[in-house]
């Protein structure tokens, strides 16, 4: 089997401003179209060059994106149904289709009015609790007990980890503080200009104990998009290409029920990371920075362990002492992450990795960044891992 290593490149990136509006000033579709236009222009392409679209489940459909951009001959479209693990997975899904000669340029968008739009969602929920029923497992066995939203689901794993390994709130705080610190170097981040201390963190109100407000990602109105093509085509385009070295995708088992997993800490990335490292032919020591899906701070500790950056139970001490800061051994979420830049479905992690590898990250640039790792995380801990190089 011919490896896809170094055969597929990210050649264009686009993003809208990240905001927290009182009311949406567009739709989930229109905000993504703006990011798509920016990504296509960044690549030096025209809309009609795009012949494959991989949109994320729930926020847009490829047909409505294609018709707005005037793409009248879409050769392929697909959506990997692993929620917010999809954007990273779509690099590979698009890459496979391109490498097989099915299409030439794949456009991957994601974005939403995740802040102003969610106010409306809550209003609807207040009127009829059955509207948001989720999958059958959650609907029938979690929701009736008041376990309805992600901070409640995933704090189960955090509590277990704290009980078993002695992980502390100060260690969770180290994750939040690191990302907030990075956001101070990134004018695009929602939390730019709003630094945080450990005292702020420990004094913050609880949401679903052990998760406090500052353990949670920031709802955000924003969208991002990127364009993927072959190595050969990438050479003739406007930007310095970023190469896909390795990819892995995985799900914990059973994927649809987080309560009856033999190993409660198993995640999608537990399986995905070894696949990505094997394909890339490198080890953890070769990674210069990592953009890790941080819906919640503990899930960064959990993913670092599950991907093998440290042993299980050692993730708490691992994130302390500046190791994951820019300038540290493994800078993590150099843009501020979902927790301090904004929750744009993990798409912003890919955009940030590409900026780092182009050397375009400005004040939050990791010096001499050559290889970066990005994770996606969605649903009940599905995972995707991509390893990119300059």
């Amino acid at each position, binding site marked *: 089997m011919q490896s896809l290593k170094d055969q597929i490149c990210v050649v264009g990136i686009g993003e809208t401003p990240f905001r927290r509006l009182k009311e949406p000033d567009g739709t989930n579709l229109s905000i993504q179209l703006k990011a798509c236009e920016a990504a296509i222009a960044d690549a030096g392409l025209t809309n009609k060059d795009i012949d494959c679209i991989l949109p994320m489940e729930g926020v847009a459909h490829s047909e409505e994106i294609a018709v707005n951009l005037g793409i009248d001959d879409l050769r392929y479209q697909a959506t990997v149904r692993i929620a917010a693990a999809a954007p990273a997975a779509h690099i590979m899904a698009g890459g496979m289709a391109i490498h097989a000669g099915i299409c030439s340029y794949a456009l991957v968008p994601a974005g939403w009015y995740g802040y102003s739009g969610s106010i409306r969602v*809550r209003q609807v929920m207040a009127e009829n609790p059955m509207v948001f029923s989720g999958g059958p497992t959650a609907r029938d066995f979690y929701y*009736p007990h*008041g*376990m309805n939203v992600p901070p409640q689901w995933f704090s*189960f*794993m955090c509590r277990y980890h704290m*009980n078993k390994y002695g992980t502390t709130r100060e260690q969770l705080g180290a994750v939040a503080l690191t990302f907030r610190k990075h956001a101070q170097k990134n004018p695009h981040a929602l939390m730019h200009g709003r630094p945080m201390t450990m005292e702020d963190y420990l004094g913050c109100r609880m949401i679903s*104990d052990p998760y406090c407000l500052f353990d949670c990602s920031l709802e955000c109105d924003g969208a991002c998009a990127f364009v993927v093509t072959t190595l050969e085509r990438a050479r003739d385009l406007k930007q310095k290409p970023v190469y896909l070295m390795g990819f892995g995708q995985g799900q914990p088992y059973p994927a649809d*029920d987080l309560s*009856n997993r033999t190993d409660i800490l198993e995640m999608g990335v537990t399986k995905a990371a070894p696949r990505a490292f094997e394909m890339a032919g490198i080890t953890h020591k070769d990674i210069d920075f990592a953009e890790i899906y941080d819906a919640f701070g503990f899930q960064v500790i959990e993913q670092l362990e599950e991907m093998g950056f440290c042993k299980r139970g050692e993730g708490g001490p691992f994130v302390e002492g500046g190791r994951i800061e820019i300038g540290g051994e493994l800078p993590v979420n150099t843009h501020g992450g979902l927790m301090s830049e904004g929750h744009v479905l993990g798409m912003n992690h890919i955009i940030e990795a590409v900026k780092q590898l182009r050397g375009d990250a400005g004040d939050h640039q990791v010096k001499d960044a050559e290889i970066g790792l990005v994770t996606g995380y969605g649903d009940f801990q599905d995972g995707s891992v991509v390893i990119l190089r300059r």
Partner: protein
Amino acid sequence: MTEKGSQSYWKPLPLLEGTSGEFYGFCKNRELRFQRCTGCGKWRHVPRDMCAECGSWEWEWAKSSGRGKLFTWTVVTLAMYPAFKDEVPYAVALIEMEEGPRIVSRIVDVPPEDLTMDMPLEVFFEDVTDEVTLPKFRRASS
């Protein structure tokens, strides 16, 4: 929305269909039952069509002792569904039953700060509407 007496019930409810409906039917009769494969004897929850261990389509609804221990939990202080607002703070827990399956439920008679890993718990049943009875947990009587 469903009615219980003259009271409106605004919280999410299970859809009483298929094997989920059967599970809640037993709860209404004050019984906690899980599927047990008649091929290999493996207990399971949530309900499934097939046994993941041996591939059998045959199962029985086997009665649980109702006793288990606290596996992990979260203490909800911000109600995301407005209907749970009057209940915060409340503990949602994952309970590992003696037979093996784990179940998501609520612990009602223990203050959240007194919860400890592996604490022994036992099931009881609460009729939340005329149709739906939820299994809930309290400290096990010794």
